[in-house]
């Protein structure tokens, strides 16, 4: 394994010069965002980063396309799933398993050709799920495509959700392939709290409806005339964990129905909202659904609307409320905050293959919309868009991301295709703030190819990026004025056995000193905690940590004595800080009681 790294230092004067492989150079003007004007290149593009560092990168495996992206979407990397020390990266051509036991030295483990796009993956125990929607998908995963015309019924064709047994990680075996009318663009796993022998899959199809001669019962009929239309629904697939071969569709709930009339097509009909507004797609599909099983909630990004679902009965999800937005073109994906009090929806204006982060593109178009959830209703608070202009030759728009588990804050690491990764804080839903980023220049200086990050997800201490053309990147956060070493260390304490971004787990933190210190840093940053208070508290905590058995009780008493004043202070703080005081005091008491 040959590795080399090249780095060029920074010039503090605000003017910087960088050089990359091949000695290309570039000068930035003072004050300009360093992401603007980066040199193009498939493997040697210019790079700008702040408060995060690239610690490992691997190109795509042989057969899965090169870094130039000129092979097109057919070779694109797509979504990521994690299990233990393994990362599974899906793609339009198949999927690849990576060993991430040591995140700084990731390695390719197994390559699996199985075309059909998009190839989004999820994992549950020994089962790996894959979305297939395109016309070349074959039941047998063959790479030769489907014989005959696209509209001719074929028993070879597969569009739907595949299930693989991965108990032998070096040899995945396809055990089921559930055909659906529109295929599966994305899917989300929904565990059933009442029946652990089953796992449910919400399949979201966005493609054309196939003929009922290929799959019985499929109809693309007008919803007013045909109550069985495959449009205006999602597919709920039930998978018996011990017998996945018996997986089947158990319902196609009409989650867009009008609550008064029951009409199937009850939400956004498509079109603009008035002069100067965005043209929003018709709500006849969900693009992506993010479920939060612990809360019994799901957020559906459903083309023309964002919807909130009650999933306490996974087979029959019920819509609780919906929102629309005059600046959204296509409701694409959703992420809850850890408390379930907020939800971020993304707008994939331009479909992900277009440049939509140019200086001329509105900051409220192709952005995230952040909502607060109150009484199961969503209230709009703000937009967040990548704050650095990209070129005409970089496809860029809001895309997939996940939470970074810093206690006391809501932080997300998000992919913006060739706009790179942006890490931002949305604890205050009205004022999202970027705290870290990484970006490469375009693949080409003079032509647009589809590339950049499909997903960037936090998993057990690192951020992993699935780069459509260039491969896989691993990042580590660095302490900064926006995020302290204690906060990063506290985030790293949250360890997951499995992670699928569309099936959001509830995260919690142990009652240990570094978590308390993360809260202290936050309260100091917000100027609620005075520096001398922070020092006293930190000293008292250190004393408990260092105390031997004989003098621990005295150290604990000294720490305890400080807490009532802090609780009182928290009582008059703003709601965000008040919650931090409560969590900090609880953490300190929990630690002291050990």
């Amino acid at each position, binding site marked *: 394994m040959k590795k080399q790294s090249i780095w060029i230092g920074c010039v503090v004067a605000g003017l910087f010069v960088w050089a990359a492989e091949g000695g290309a150079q570039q000068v930035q003007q003072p004050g300009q965002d360093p992401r603007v004007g980066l040199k193009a290149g498939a493997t040697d593009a210019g790079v700008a980063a702040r408060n995060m560092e690239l610690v490992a990168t691997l190109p795509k495996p042989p057969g899965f396309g090169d870094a130039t992206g000129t092979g097109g979407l057919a070779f694109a990397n797509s979504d990521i799933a994690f299990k233990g020390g393994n990362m599974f990266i899906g793609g339009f051509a198949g999927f690849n398993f990576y060993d991430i036991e040591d995140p700084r030295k990731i390695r390719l483990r197994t390559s699996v050709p199985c075309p059909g796009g998009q190839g989004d993956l999820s994992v549950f125990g020994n089962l790996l799920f894959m979305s297939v929607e395109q016309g070349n998908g074959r*039941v047998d995963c063959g790479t030769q495509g489907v014989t005959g015309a696209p509209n001719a019924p074929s028993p070879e064709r597969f569009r739907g959700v595949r299930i693989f047994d991965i108990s032998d990680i*070096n040899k995945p075996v396809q055990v089921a392939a559930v055909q659906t009318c529109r295929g599966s663009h994305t899917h989300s796993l929904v565990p059933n709290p009442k029946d652990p022998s089953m796992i449910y899959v919400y399949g979201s199809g966005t493609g054309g409806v196939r003929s009922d001669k290929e799959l019985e019962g499929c109809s693309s009929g007008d919803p007013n005339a045909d109550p069985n239309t495959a449009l205006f629904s999602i597919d709920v697939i039930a998978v018996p964990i011990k017998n996945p071969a018996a997986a089947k569709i158990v319902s196609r709930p009409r989650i867009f129905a009008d609550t008064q009339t029951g009409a199937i097509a009850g939400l956004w009909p498509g079109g603009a909202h008035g002069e100067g507004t965005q043209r929003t797609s018709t709500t006849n599909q969900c693009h992506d659904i993010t479920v939060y099983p612990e809360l019994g909630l799901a957020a559906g990004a459903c083309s023309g609307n964002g919807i909130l679902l009650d999933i306490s009965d996974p087979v029959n999800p019920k819509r609780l409320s919906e929102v629309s937005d005059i600046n959204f073109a296509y409701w694409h994906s959703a992420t809850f905050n850890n408390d379930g009090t907020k939800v971020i929806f993304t707008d994939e204006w331009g479909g992900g293959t277009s440049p939509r982060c140019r200086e001329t593109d509105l900051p409220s178009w192709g952005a995230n919309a952040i909502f607060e959830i109150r009484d199961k209703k969503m209230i709009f608070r703000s937009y967040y868009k990548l704050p650095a202009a990209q070129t005409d030759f970089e496809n860029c728009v809001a895309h997939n991301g996940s939470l970074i588990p810093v206690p006391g804050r809501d932080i997300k690491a998000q992919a913006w295709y060739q706009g790179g990764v942006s890490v931002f804080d949305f604890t205050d839903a009205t004022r999202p703030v970027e705290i870290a980023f990484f970006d490469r220049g375009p693949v080409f200086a003079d032509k647009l190819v589809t590339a950049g990050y499909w997903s960037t997800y936090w998993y057990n201490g690192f951020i992993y990026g699935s780069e459509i053309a260039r491969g896989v990147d691993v990042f580590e956060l660095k302490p900064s004025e926006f995020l302290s070493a204690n906060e990063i260390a506290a985030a790293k304490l949250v360890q997951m056995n499995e992670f699928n971004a569309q099936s959001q787990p509830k995260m919690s933190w142990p009652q240990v000193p570094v978590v308390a210190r993360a809260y202290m840093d936050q309260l100091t940053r917000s100027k609620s905690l005075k520096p001398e208070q922070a020092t006293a508290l930190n000293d008292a905590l250190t004393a408990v940590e260092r105390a031997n058995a004989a003098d621990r009780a005295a150290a604990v008493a000294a720490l305890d004595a400080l807490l009532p004043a802090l609780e009182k202070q928290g009582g008059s703080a703003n709601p965000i800080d008040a919650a931090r005081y409560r969590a900090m005091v609880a953490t300190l008491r929990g630690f002291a009681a050990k």
Partner: protein
Amino acid sequence: MKRTNRVNVCLATTVIAAVVVFSGQASAQVPVVQPGAPGKPSRELSESERPKAVASKHSPADTKFMQGMIGHHAQAVEMVDLLKTRTKREDMRMLGMRIEVSQNDEIKMMRLWLQNRGESIPSEHAHHLPGGTMPGMLTPEEMEKLRVAKGAEFDRLFLQGMIRHHGGALTMVQELMSSPGAMQEAEIHDFATHVDADQRMEILRMNTMLKGIKK
């Protein structure tokens, strides 16, 4: 080897610049596993069995579709050019803007698609040449009639023409879908699917607008 792959960061300033280059591990050691249909075993592929490119190739029908659609889209843009000076209706102007933006973006995309696959790229004016016409396109005489029309008459002719023009695009998609071996490649699949959905929706909208004008 510890931390040799580390990229140095300057936290004091706002910028780092770095390139991490990995040569990649030797591919021979990594198994390539070809799954079978459900219930069938997977098979590890030998070095010689491994596909050089795990993707379906585009077909001659795909190329013909893209080449034809460039001229087809170009005429829509020409029609919108007329609309800019001839209509008085704001909704018509917005419709025109939408068509112009989407069709220009798509022309760029189609040219790039052809270029990246080594196929010849027709001139956007090829549809003016004999035999260059595609389903639903306006004849030179019809274009001339539109050119001289004004006000409500223009709006009516424009909508009728554009509805027929979009309908032609749907015919082209249907022809593509009836061609064996077509739409196996990811981008053409998505593009043709998108054109079909998008233009269907636009036709519905234009039909509604047309009813408003006829009143």
